[in-house]
């Protein structure tokens, strides 16, 4: 029998044997580059603006360089349902809680210097298309006192906000009908709107250049271990520690167990489900073990319309006392707007279908009453997006869970997550690396407030 090497088959077989024997280089017979790594120090669940911001600050604040391995797990790389991409993109400092104002001030400074923070050698600079037109919040008689005290707090924190009477409002913006308006607060600087997609792509690009790994998959399981301790009053407490995250690859049954030290829950509208997977809220109600993460998906509509005689170039982001809002979009007299529904009218968050009757019944009447030019308008398009709505007090949850000790939350911002993302990312990175907040103190946003019942109520929710 003549043994001849036909077309390199012999060398192939030799290669396969060598790859299996110890001491050789690992050349697997099939390509596994789509799988996440087997070990990662930090796993961030959710690749939206909050998750990427946490990844950026972790890599920026780590000492020494390259010390921490970070993996970002994102289920949908087209971001078709992500709140970031569907957001209206506004940023303001007109909040009632001082921590929210500080978060927003830092974030707007980050956006101003975005090309210094997110610069990548050889890539073009980012243009987030910021419109510095400010926010105009209108208040009726009932809300005037609250608005005044809010503006006082905002001014103390350093926001440049001024109060206007109906007379001044008419002089400045003649297209407003000031009937029913008792007071207005107008942000003069550092408020406006920008392009959230550009921020997302900029963060992605920078974070990839810093060495963060991305995985296109879904988290399906957490493998954790528990330990029992006793509190000072003699109660038994079970502390859990997550050891592995099972990441299921998109459109396949294959999953990869990723061994991790920390998990950051930045899954936005789906954070509640991720928290349940980790065992948050599994216990008798009324106890700390039984306190669930009160973040759920809420659908919000945004409509784009054209009004030829509408307000001019100086139009700020106007928020009416009734909750309806609108802003200009571009140069062609197009306007974006919407309204948050009341609790009874909440639409079903199962899909992102738009209800056009909602515009006719709930958005158009208050806006047409406030801006008479809007009586003639034509809706061009509409879309819907999710709020990661915190049903407890409509403010974010930041920090570790008291019982599942290595899960950190950065979610529940109820519609103002985009404008606080850079600052929240830095706060979470400080918490992870130093154990406490260093620049902005977000202790009021800890998870334990849900169990203790201490609401940090934000009044200016749009």
């Amino acid at each position: 029998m003549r043994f001849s090497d036909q077309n390199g088959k012999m060398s192939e077989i030799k290669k396969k044997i060598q790859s299996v024997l110890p001491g050789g280089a690992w050349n697997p017979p099939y390509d596994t580059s789509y799988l996440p790594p087997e070990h990662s120090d930090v796993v961030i669940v959710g690749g939206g603006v909050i998750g990427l911001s946490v990844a950026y600050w972790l890599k920026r604040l780590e000492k020494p360089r390259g010390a921490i391995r970070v993996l970002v797990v994102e289920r949908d790389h087209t971001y078709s349902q992500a709140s970031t991409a569907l957001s209206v993109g506004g940023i303001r400092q007109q909040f009632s809680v001082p921590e929210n104002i500080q978060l927003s001030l830092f974030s707007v400074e980050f956006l101003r210097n975005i090309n210094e923070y997110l610069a990548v050698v050889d890539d073009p600079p980012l243009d987030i298309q910021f419109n510095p037109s400010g926010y105009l919040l209108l208040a009726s008689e009932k809300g005037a006192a609250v608005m005044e005290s809010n503006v006082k707090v905002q001014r103390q924190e350093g926001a440049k906000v001024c109060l206007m009477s109906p007379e001044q409002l008419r002089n400045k913006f003649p297209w407003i009908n000031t009937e029913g308006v008792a007071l207005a607060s107008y942000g003069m600087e550092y408020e406006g709107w920008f392009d959230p997609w550009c921020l997302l792509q900029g963060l992605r690009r920078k974070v990839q250049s810093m060495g963060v790994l991305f995985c296109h998959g879904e988290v399906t399981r957490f493998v954790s271990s528990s330990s029992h301790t006793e509190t000072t009053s003699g109660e038994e407490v079970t502390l859990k520690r997550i050891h592995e995250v099972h990441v299921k690859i998109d459109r396949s049954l294959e999953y990869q167990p990723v061994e991790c030290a920390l998990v950051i829950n930045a899954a936005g509208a789906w954070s509640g489900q991720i928290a349940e997977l980790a065992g948050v809220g599994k216990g008798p109600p009324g106890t700390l073990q039984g306190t669930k993460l009160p973040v759920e998906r809420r659908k919000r509509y945004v409509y784009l319309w054209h009004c030829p005689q509408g307000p001019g170039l100086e139009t700020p982001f106007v928020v009416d006392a009734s909750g309806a809002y609108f802003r200009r979009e571009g140069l062609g007299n197009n306007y974006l707007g919407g309204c948050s529904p009341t609790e009874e009218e909440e639409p079903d968050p199962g899909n992102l279908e738009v209800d056009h009757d909602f515009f006719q019944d709930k958005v158009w009447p208050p806006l047409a009453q406030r801006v008479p030019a809007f009586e003639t308008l034509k809706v061009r398009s509409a879309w819907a997006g999710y709020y990661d709505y915190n049903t407890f007090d409509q403010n974010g949850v930041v920090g570790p869970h008291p019982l599942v000790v290595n899960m950190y939350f950065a979610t529940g911002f109820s519609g103002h997550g985009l404008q606080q993302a850079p600052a929240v990312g830095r706060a979470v990175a400080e918490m992870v690396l130093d154990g406490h907040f260093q620049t902005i103190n977000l202790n009021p946003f800890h998870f334990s407030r849900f169990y203790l019942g201490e609401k940090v109520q934000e009044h200016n929710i749009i």
Partner: protein
Amino acid sequence: MAAPRAPLHLVMPVWNRGTRGIRGLSRAVALEGSQKKGRSLLQFLADRFYDVQALREYLLQKQVLKVHQKNRPFTYIKERFGPHAAGAYFILKQGGAVKFQGKEWIRSDAHGHFSLDFLKFQAVPVEAVNASGCAINYQGLDSLLALKELRSLWLQRCPHVDDWCLGRLHPLANSLQELSLAGCPRISERGLASLHHLQNLRRLDISDLHAVSNPGLTRILVEEMLPSCQVLGADWAQGLPSGPDEQSQDKASPIPA
């Protein structure tokens, strides 16, 4: 290596040939291939890719720091001589020109030197500032915003003045009558929207703004926004340089859609 044993060394020898880690690999491969006299500069740099990358990032950071240094505030001069003198010093240091009320224009010479006589004018306000071509940015505007009686401000061809800076000009609303932003590469129509605070503005020059997407339409909207202001520039003849003959052509021709 003897020939019969050569195939078995397919995977092994590249690792075993006394190489010092990853860098040694490329050297091993390179020595095989390029037998020319010495390696070229490109090969040298390519071997040290991450070092070159770090050096480039450092140089980028240094450029940014240079602009920051130019825009630092002069607090000592402000405390000792007042905000007007501090603002004037800042502009002159950047290479611009300043005009005090009732005096002549002061500017620095070719070497960047200027006389410090103006420090004697304690209470005389600054009337006009010409900061064309200066590296003034958002921080540097601090010094300018303290000049409460500024009448005209020229920021032509400033490379770091962008939309954020325009949003900051509202403290000058009471006095500012003339503003020129011609040729600034970073200003777009979004920044121009924040000029509506400047109600006393009488002359506004927005010619030659490359970042503005639709100059003709922008000019119409700005004219509507500031009814008592004369807006120059940005009409149909976009490629032509702005000059005195442009005003006479203003009346007759239509603005394209």
